[in-house]
């Protein structure tokens, strides 16, 4: 910039500053206005679709949500809720046997059970066991199968 265009304080000239300020404000507001006008209908459609999808779910699917991709058979957790007292404790045993409907995230079954079964507490030596492909015989000598879907998911009570 030439000396003539500088102001006495040493910065750019007032007219240059004013022009850049005006352009900066105008461009910002214009781009924002266009973006907002394009994005708002998209947002409303996206959120509306999500509401419709959530509304179409069954009570069970909505209550399980993330658990649908973790737990192979929801009935296992319902059985656990019905059998294990609120102050009881349980353990989740994920074993090597095949489980029908198992997913890559099934290894997080313990995490989901903690969320879903609270106030019941997870405990490594609990009397109740949620078994996903586990070997009941390896847990204790006396194990009662309280419920099983015969596909690898079962609720066990360890008696001794």
């Amino acid at each position, binding site marked *: 910039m030439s000396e003539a265009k500088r102001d006495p304080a040493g910065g750019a000239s007032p007219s240059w500053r004013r022009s850049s*300020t005006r352009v*900066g*404000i105008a461009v910002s*507001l214009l781009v924002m206005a266009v973006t907002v006008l394009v994005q708002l209908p998209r947002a409303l459609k996206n959120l509306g679709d999500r509401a419709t999808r959530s*509304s179409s779910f069954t*009570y069970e699917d909505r209550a399980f949500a993330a658990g649908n991709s973790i737990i192979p058979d929801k009935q296992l957790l319902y059985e656990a809720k*019905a059998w294990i007292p609120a102050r009881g404790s349980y353990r989740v045993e994920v074993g090597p046997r095949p489980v029908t409907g198992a997913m890559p995230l099934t290894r997080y079954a313990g*995490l989901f059970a*903690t969320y879903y079964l609270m106030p019941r507490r997870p405990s490594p030596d609990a009397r109740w066991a949620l078994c996903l492909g586990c070997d009941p015989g390896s847990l204790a000598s006396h194990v009662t199968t309280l*419920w099983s879907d015969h596909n690898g998911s079962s609720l066990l009570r360890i008696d001794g």
Partner: protein
Amino acid sequence: MTLVAIAGLVALNLLLLAAGSGVLWATCGWDSWLELARLAGVAYLAGVATVGVLLVLELTAGIPFGLTAILVTALAVLAVGIVLGRAFGRRRPPRRGGTATALSGPALVHGVGIALAVLYLEAQFRAARLAGLYEWDAMAFWVPKAKAIYYFGGLDQQFFSSLPGPSYPPLVPALDASAFTFMGATDPITLHLMFWFLLVGYLAAVAGLLATRVRSLALWLPLLLVALSPVLIDHGVASLADLLLDYFIGLAALLFALWLLEKRRWQLTLGGIFMTSAFLTKREGLLLGAVLLASLAIAACWKRRRDWRAVVLVAALAVVAPLIWRVWLNARGISTGGPEAGYLGSIHHLDRVWPCLKLTLRVLFAGDSWLIAPPLFVVAIGTALAARVRELALLAGSFFVLATLACAWVIVSFPSMPITTNASANPIVRLSGGLVVPMAGLMPLLLDAAWRTLEGQARPAARRRLVALRSRPLAWGIVAVATLAYPLAALAGGAPRFPSLRDCARPATHDGKIQLVLATFDSSVPADAMLARVRKLGFVQAQVFGDGCGRVKVAVPGYTTLAGARDALAEAEGAGLHAELQQG
């Protein structure tokens, strides 16, 4: 999922608003009831921040959590606020009138801005109301911690040491647990609405603080731009702590910026309160808060070197509460968290620095997470610099640069974290919210401050005010139409549903698919026993079904007429069974 749960949430949020009004009264007061309405968003989030911090301190002190604790805490905040307000000489405004400050700019633009925000928030509400808990971190530890507080009345040692993220402060779990208490159940679906209230609070707070200070266009466009970003659309009501942290940082940044311009003590005080709550919301709050305080110190000391003392005082006070939490963690032998590579371990991973910085810049500038908010923020800083609004530009610029580096540092210091925008493997998108969400408040200030330097060519203020007065009824009309339009359009598709266990047992009222339900159980074991019994009684077609709500029923399906089903019902009752007819 019920109206009762929603009513409970409304009550809790009104309580938080009342508590926050006490904070606002003590810190700055208000000249009219309209001014309080304008600042309701600030009051509400001040309530969330203050009550949240106090609940965390109570939990660490071992005070039992419950309805009494929540009520006493919130009402104590309100009472202390009133007493302090009186001590500071605040005067109750007249019932009508008062010195209401006129909104800046045409009321019509404010009307359109409010209308668009209301439309968007209504759509968010509708999406939130029946949303399942799909967010991984929410399922893995935020909601379980809240449930633990709700069920056990405190910070249960087992859950708070074994769940993932044990060092995260429990402000959000305490708020979630308060929501459960007011809803009367651990309802993770309706819980999304709590986060909807927080989103409303943030947008209202920014709009309320700036409505009298900046031109309406400069206010609403940046605010809507950030609100409509894909991250906020997708996660605006997620039961996570990230956005609440961003709101606290955003409000602290805005209040600090206002303090730079106006030097009112209440702005620094309220900013400090939001800063404290940010520290207690997530570990990242400490990093973002430190970045914000450093930026404030740079900007404040630019002209007046003495101002650093005020900044240090705010920082010192804000850091007390998180220190107490750290002491609690240490006392129980729980890891205080921190980066995987250690705080200084990043120097051993210098090869990750550039890729992580590139990743952060890509998230900020690619447009698929935050639209064009970050590039326009840079333009706004440049415009402010061109207009010689240096203090503000320095605050915003330092915050942008330091926060970008801080986000990159977080990724560098977790060497096992892959460098990707995939949210399940790398938190960079959520982390960047702490940088972008505050732009909703800083960008209007930057643009308006630059605009003011052109004031000589603007319309005279008196004429602007006249325009505002004339267009006010039209503005209110636009807001009213927008408020009603979305619910009416949604209602045209049918009345809202409130799913409950009863939905899975709809009584038969007309011909069609009808079942004779002989018994319902929580477990299939007694159901199997019952099945054997009813088959012996002659109901050989009976089967065991899941009812879709987690229960098991023994039923005879296949009836098509109500009359035929009623005959079977009479037969079942004759056999001593408590049966009923259900549609389906």
